[in-house]
């Protein structure tokens, strides 16, 4: 989580973090907060091999967030989408994926001054719910 020296560039992200926390064992099927209608997210990435991730994607789409499926591998979403978008400016993404996909995206995000600002284990292992967002120094 960001410390006091930092704040989330996209303030609305902060408002959905409690919603993401619901993706833990207490609530296997994450329901994004109802107030999260003006999605500040650039995209939500989900692993289509897992049923909870499919449900997550459907909910994100209903909320107007663009989604991108992966099948474990982030190469396509990285090379054809995020690398180009982040080259222009860092923008927040969220996801429900296996840890290995997050590992790759986190490392790549660091190069664009972005950080994982939320990371919650999902009840269905090995899924993990996460948000990557830009940070700026205060």
């Amino acid at each position, binding site marked *: 989580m960001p410390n006091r020296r930092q704040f989330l560039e996209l303030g609305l992200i902060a408002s959905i973090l409690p919603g993401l926390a619901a993706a833990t064992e207490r609530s296997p099927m994450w329901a994004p907060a109802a107030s999260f209608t003006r999605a500040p997210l650039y995209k939500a990435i989900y692993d289509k091999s897992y049923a909870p991730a499919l449900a997550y994607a459907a909910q994100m789409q209903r909320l107007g967030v663009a989604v991108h499926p992966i099948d474990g*591998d982030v190469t396509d979403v990285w090379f054809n989408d995020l690398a180009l978008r982040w080259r222009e400016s860092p923008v927040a993404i969220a996801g429900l994926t296996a840890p*290995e996909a997050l590992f790759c995206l986190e490392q790549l995000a660091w190069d664009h001054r972005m950080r994982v600002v939320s990371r919650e284990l999902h009840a269905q292992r090995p899924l993990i719910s996460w948000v990557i967002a830009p940070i700026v120094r205060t």
Partner: protein
Amino acid sequence: MTLPPGMSQRDFSAALRQLETAVGKEWVFSAPEDVALYRDAYSPFWDEEEERTASAAVAPDTVEQVQSVMRIANEHRIPIYPISTGRNLAYGGAAPVLSGSVVLDLKRMNRVLEVSEENAYALVEPGVSYFDLYRDIQDRGLKLMIDVPTPGWGSLIGNALDHGAGVTPMRDHWSTQCGMEVVLANGDLLRTGMGALPGAETWQQYKFGVGPWIDGLFSQSNFGVVTKMGFWLMPQPDAYLTGTVVVPRYSDLIPLVDTLNFVENSGVVNGMPQLGSPLLGGFFNPIQSELRELIENGASTDELEAYARRQGAGYWSCTLKFYGPEKSIAADWEWCQDKFAAAIPGATFENGEQFRFPLSTEEIEAITRGQALGSRNSTLPEFGIPSLTMFSIGARSATNPNPTEGHMWFSPIIPRTGEAIIEANRVFSEAARELDLPINAVGFSLPTTYWNRAFIYLFGLPVTKDIATNRANREKFERLVKIVAEHGWGEYRTPPAFQDAVLATYSFNNHALRRFLETLKDAVDPNGILGAGRYGIWPRHLRGGRV
């Protein structure tokens, strides 16, 4: 906060202010949450006192800024540790060898400076990744193929400097480099090869210039910061073809390797061959229970051969890969079949895959899907396409219920003979039993064929977040280094934790090599500020009592 050894917080802060002036305040990182990004994700010292951590990081954008950093480091005696993109996972990542070093992060220097289609070369900065160069070539529609390692997110320069490899005809990345620019420890700027000639028009075409060829001094070392490097590329071939040789008997391994050497060293097979055995299974196809039982019960070679015959599978296989004109490579494969058939009675042949370049989107998608599912077919790197797929292959799945949290490569080089493979397996099996290591789990491992003239074994020893396990595995790693050295084999590359131990095995004539490297180090970096300890080369003031 970690500080450079022997430096006060006050002095370090003053130095950081100077670095901020040199590169811009926003590109000097000293806050703990920023410096933490330079931890090695696969560190075998994770969370231990000995974990190698940085004191700060500085990310210059130009060669002139790198020179300024060197001068400031000399003034303050600050240890500097250069990284390109810091993705050398399993061989050290972004973390310095010496704790307290300031990481010199070159990722902002990510310009593709030149690509020549006519002469098939590129000139790049250290922050250029394989993805970056691939994109540049695709965007410009150039008919060139690059060679990529797996994964493809690392730096061309970093990978070449560490002697990395890929799978296509240009897979020996160090051999394909041609001309470099280097900032020396004192801030001076050097160009190698033809680059030393002002106005040179052949910097990326002729490697040697005149006089001693010194490029090698900057690989796996700490004599300078490479800020530009040329690479030879391959014109996009017309076609790609694979074919597999299958041989029936255990003893056939020896003529199989001899013949493989012949067809490769003749220049006929130009892709990276793949040795295999239906008896060994693989990551996605664990060996059958009947076979496992045979192996665990110490089955004889005759029994294993009989098992292979029952399966109609052969004992060994070797997949050959060809790049070139369609008709030529078809003829090359036919010629290879003649050679193997003459050398090995009972050898059989299977035609493999055929592709024409450029691949279609559908073909790329199919290859990607196959790769993710563990297909034995060719993968994206075979076509010069970078990918991150290997991370998903290592993910938790039905065949891999307990994925590791990282690994460290133990990677010895052995002779390119069948006899050496057999002897290496005897040694590795003995070591696995002695050290209770998960290598040679099925009793036999085959080497990788990055290089035409020597084999390399790659064993990924697990790295965990458990301190006791990591300590035990480090001890086992060091024991392995000694065991292979006792047999005349040495590692080609190793994580920082073992670089001292590995260099110590290259000990001919009372460590003449290390003594020579230290003499050079003292001459070109008298203050010992650059890359302290990298590949066992320490500056004088950090050598302790060792002579």
